């Protein structure tokens, strides 16, 4: 018992300190009552095959094994190459029973378990490994190798381990009894189950992201959604590969475990470099916003694509560890340039709010990666820790999630911006439309105004024309009126005269002086007839005028009992039948001369002369002369108020004007009082000048 306790203490000590234990050739145990676990590091001899020179079983058995405890490690270790390892173990059963224990060295790619027979030949007892077992095999049961040693005998075992991955899982040979082995497995199982839950949750979220991206892309065909979806898909594949129901069971891809190699590193490169920059390019619209950065991103994308192809090539050549190395260098090599890119982008963030989402997402992921790397440097050492850059640690998972969320939020924000832009554009469009409408309205108004102006112009012209026509009409009307007036005046032979004549005829009749009455009546009839006749004509011949005046004066002479004499003289040169004078022009002047010519108390007999003369220039002169009191004195004598003035003179003053207006002639009338010329004389001279047409 003491020894067992010692051994236990020893194991605990050795596992915790990695102390250099003295090598012992053979493990000596009572297999009937074994300790729960035995650290085998000091009992195991090892042989490492050279790279690219794998050893056969015979070769390995014939080689010399050395004792090298440095081979073993409890955590992952990056060997930087394929690890082809042979382990040899001698076990002696000091117990009384044949017994069996379980050897567990960790999870490795290829494992072959040999037992040496008595003749020194090895037989393969079992083989297993992450890459060796095909689908449908419960690998989990096969990583513990049975160590059967009959009682009191010594047996030799050979374990061949090949790790092709860049990361070698924990390599720690421990011998468990059945109970302890079960306990150990349970611990492992619960750990993996916890991890699986995390990965499942992560996968669920990533699937949600993927569907969001896909749905968004369908709604709004924006290429950044596609890149984002590809990125998420890569991540899903990456993590789905890690989803293990039992440790290293590779439950999802166990049908083809090679995917672990084919996908792991390329997936990281694909997700975090290729798709990342492509997404950034499309998402930030760098082509327009930041062309230089766009070039950088394109170059990075192209080179990442190249690297991915190289990785695939390496994998195809079964150089599985090379992609890991490449990835480490790529990661570390791009750390500083990426930071520079971030800074460059950050400076643009003020004008480009999307940059913030991109930056925060990227930073989250890279810091998470760096964090997990830095956290592992101390326990693993620098080189081994590099593996943690790609290992799905909790921190990195959080980083990945944060990044995806930031990107998704960025995309949503981008959508919002696009929506805003669209709204703005719509508003601008509406504004423009309104403006157009306004413009159209203004144009219409202007047009209307123009039309109005033109209409008013037309109306004005029309009115002008109308006015002109009116004026024309007025003129014509005036002319007609003048003519009518003239006719009226012509017809206006003094009614006083007419009724006085009738009175005289009445008297002769009553006095039975029929001859006189007859003469008076016929003369009067002639005069009235001529007056009516002349009133219809504008011009009459001088002969007619003279006859008319003769008749008139004859009647007047009869009225005034021969108290007047008259004389009508015509120059013999005048062709009286051809000359024409305005009808009834002279009569009122003659009547006036009769009326006032007889009022001169100094002259018992009124003397009236009418003289027609032809002046030079086709001018007919008519002079009516009386020996009355003269126009001035007769005017003085007239005590009548002005409004009762007799029509004769009024007519005479108007007549010439009217005639001149009517016939456009220059009839001139001059009334002279004789006493003005010579005060010894008395009387009036009326001089009428009639131009011959």
């Amino acid at each position: 018992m003491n020894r067992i306790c010692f051994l236990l203490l020893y194991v605990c000590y050795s596992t915790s300190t990695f102390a250099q234990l003295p090598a012992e050739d053979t493990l000596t145990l009572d297999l009937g009552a074994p300790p729960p676990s035995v650290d085998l590091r000091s009992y195991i001899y090892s042989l490492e095959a050279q790279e690219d020179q794998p050893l056969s079983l015979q070769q390995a058995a014939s080689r010399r094994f050395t004792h090298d405890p440095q081979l073993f490690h409890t955590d992952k270790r990056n060997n930087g190459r394929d690890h082809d390892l042979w382990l040899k173990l001698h076990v002696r059963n000091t117990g009384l029973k044949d017994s069996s224990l379980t050897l567990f060295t960790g999870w490795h790619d290829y494992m072959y378990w040999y037992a040496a027979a008595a003749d020194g030949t090895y037989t393969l007892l079992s083989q297993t490994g992450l890459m060796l077992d095909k689908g449908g095999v419960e690998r989990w049961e096969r990583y513990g190798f049975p160590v059967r040693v009959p009682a009191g005998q010594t047996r030799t075992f050979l374990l061949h381990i090949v790790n092709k991955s860049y990361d070698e899982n924990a390599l720690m040979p421990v011998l468990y009894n059945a109970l302890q082995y079960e306990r150990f497995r349970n611990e492992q199982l619960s750990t993996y189950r916890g991890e699986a839950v995390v990965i499942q949750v992560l996968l669920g979220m990533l699937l949600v992201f993927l569907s969001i991206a896909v749905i968004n892309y369908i709604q709004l065909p924006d290429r950044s959604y596609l890149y984002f979806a590809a990125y998420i898909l890569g991540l899903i594949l990456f993590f789905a590969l890690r989803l293990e129901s039992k440790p290293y069971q590779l439950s999802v891809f166990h049908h083809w475990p090679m995917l672990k190699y084919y996908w792991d590193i390329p997936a990281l490169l694909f997700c975090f470099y290729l798709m990342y920059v492509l997404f950034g390019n499309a998402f930030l619209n760098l082509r327009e916003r930041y062309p230089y950065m766009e070039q950088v991103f394109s170059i990075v994308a192209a080179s990442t694509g190249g690297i991915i192809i190289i990785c695939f090539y390496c994998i195809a050549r079964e150089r599985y560890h090379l992609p890991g190395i490449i990835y480490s260098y790529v990661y570390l090599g791009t750390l500083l340039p990426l930071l520079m890119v971030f800074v460059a982008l950050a400076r643009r963030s003020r004008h480009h709010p999307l940059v913030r989402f991109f930056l925060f997402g990227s930073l989250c992921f890279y810091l998470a990666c760096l964090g997990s790397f830095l956290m592992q440097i101390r326990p693993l050492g620098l080189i081994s820790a590099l593996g943690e850059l790609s290992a799905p640690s909790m921190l990195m998972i959080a980083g990945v999630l944060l990044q995806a969320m930031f990107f998704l939020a960025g995309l949503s924000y981008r959508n919002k911006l696009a929506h805003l832009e669209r709204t703005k554009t719509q508003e601008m469009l509406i504004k423009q439309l309104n403006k157009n409408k306004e413009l159209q309205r203004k144009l219409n108004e202007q047009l209307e105004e123009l039309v109005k102006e033109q209409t008013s112009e037309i109306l004005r012209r029309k009115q002008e024309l109308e006015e002109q026509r009116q004026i024309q009409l007025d003129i014509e009307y005036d002319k007609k009126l003048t003519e009518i007036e003239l006719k009226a005046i012509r017809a206006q032979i003094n009614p006083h005269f007419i009724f006085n004549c009738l009175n005289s005829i009445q008297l002769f009749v009553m006095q039975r002086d029929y001859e006189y009455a007859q003469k008076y009546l016929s003369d009067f009839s002639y005069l009235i007839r001529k007056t009516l006749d002349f009133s219809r004509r504008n011009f009459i011949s001088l002969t007619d005028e003279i006859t008319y005046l003769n008749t008139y004066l004859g009647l007047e002479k009869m009225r005034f009992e021969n108290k007047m004499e008259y004389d009508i003289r015509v120059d013999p040169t005048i062709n009286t039948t051809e000359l024409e004078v305005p009808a009834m022009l002279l009569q009122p002047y003659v009547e006036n001369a009769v009326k006032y010519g007889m009022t001169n108390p100094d002259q018992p007999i009124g003397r009236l002369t009418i003289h027609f003369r032809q002046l030079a220039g086709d001018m007919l002169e008519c002079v009516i002369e009386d020996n009355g009191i003269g126009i001035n004195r007769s005017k003085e004598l007239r005590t009548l108020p002005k409004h009762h003035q007799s029509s004769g003179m009024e007519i005479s003053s108007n007549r010439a004007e009217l005639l001149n207006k009517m016939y456009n002639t220059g009839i001139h009338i001059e009334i002279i009082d004789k006493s003005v010329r010579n005060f010894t004389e008395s009387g009036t001279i009326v001089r009428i000048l009639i131009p011959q047409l």
Partner: protein
Amino acid sequence: MIKAIIIDDERNSRDIIALMLGKYCPQVDIADTASDCADGISKIKLHQPQLVFLDLEMPDGTGFDVLQGTQETPFEAVFVTAFEKKFLHAIRFSEVEIILKPIDKESLLQAVQTVTRRIEQQASKHRYRVLLDNFNHGKQTSWNLLLPLAGGQETTIHTTAIEYLESCTDKCAFYMDNGMVLYAERNFRHYADLLIPLRFYQVNNTQMVQLSHIHRVAQDSQHIQLNSGAQLEITERRKKDLLSFYNR
């Protein structure tokens, strides 16, 4: 016998008046004749006649001049003229007799009869003052109008004071703007003819209104309202005519 003088510038006229008077009105004694105004005035002053036949237009003046010159001598005048138009209103408004040449027997007899009655009744000579007033004022809007009233009474009104006149069988009622109503012993037609040129308007068969006294012409009914508040009927045709008259 009524002593009369004839004043006319034409001998023919004088002769025929004398001839006709001698023939039809033997009660009229022609004392003298005159051929112009000045002669006439002196003859009137000399003979102090009861009746003067007066020509309107003479070489040295008018019959009015003769009246003017003989205001202190009371006589009745009958105007004899060939053409009355110029002085028609002055004469007719003052109810002075007028005979138109050529003289017909009826109008001569009528005039002489009227004048004889006046002489017999020693009627007021106020009419001649009215005549001269009207004459001297010339072309005016307001004329003096002498209205013969019942019982030989007379009154003088201004035409502007007449609101409207109305036919009352053979009389004519004058509604004055002071509310007085005068009944003239002449028919409506006589005054209608006289007053039409003085902006009077006959609104219906029996009524004539002075335009300046119309307050309102109802648009919707056939009435006109006067300034005094009186309402007169008006026929539709005359209303239109009246309105157009106003618009002129």
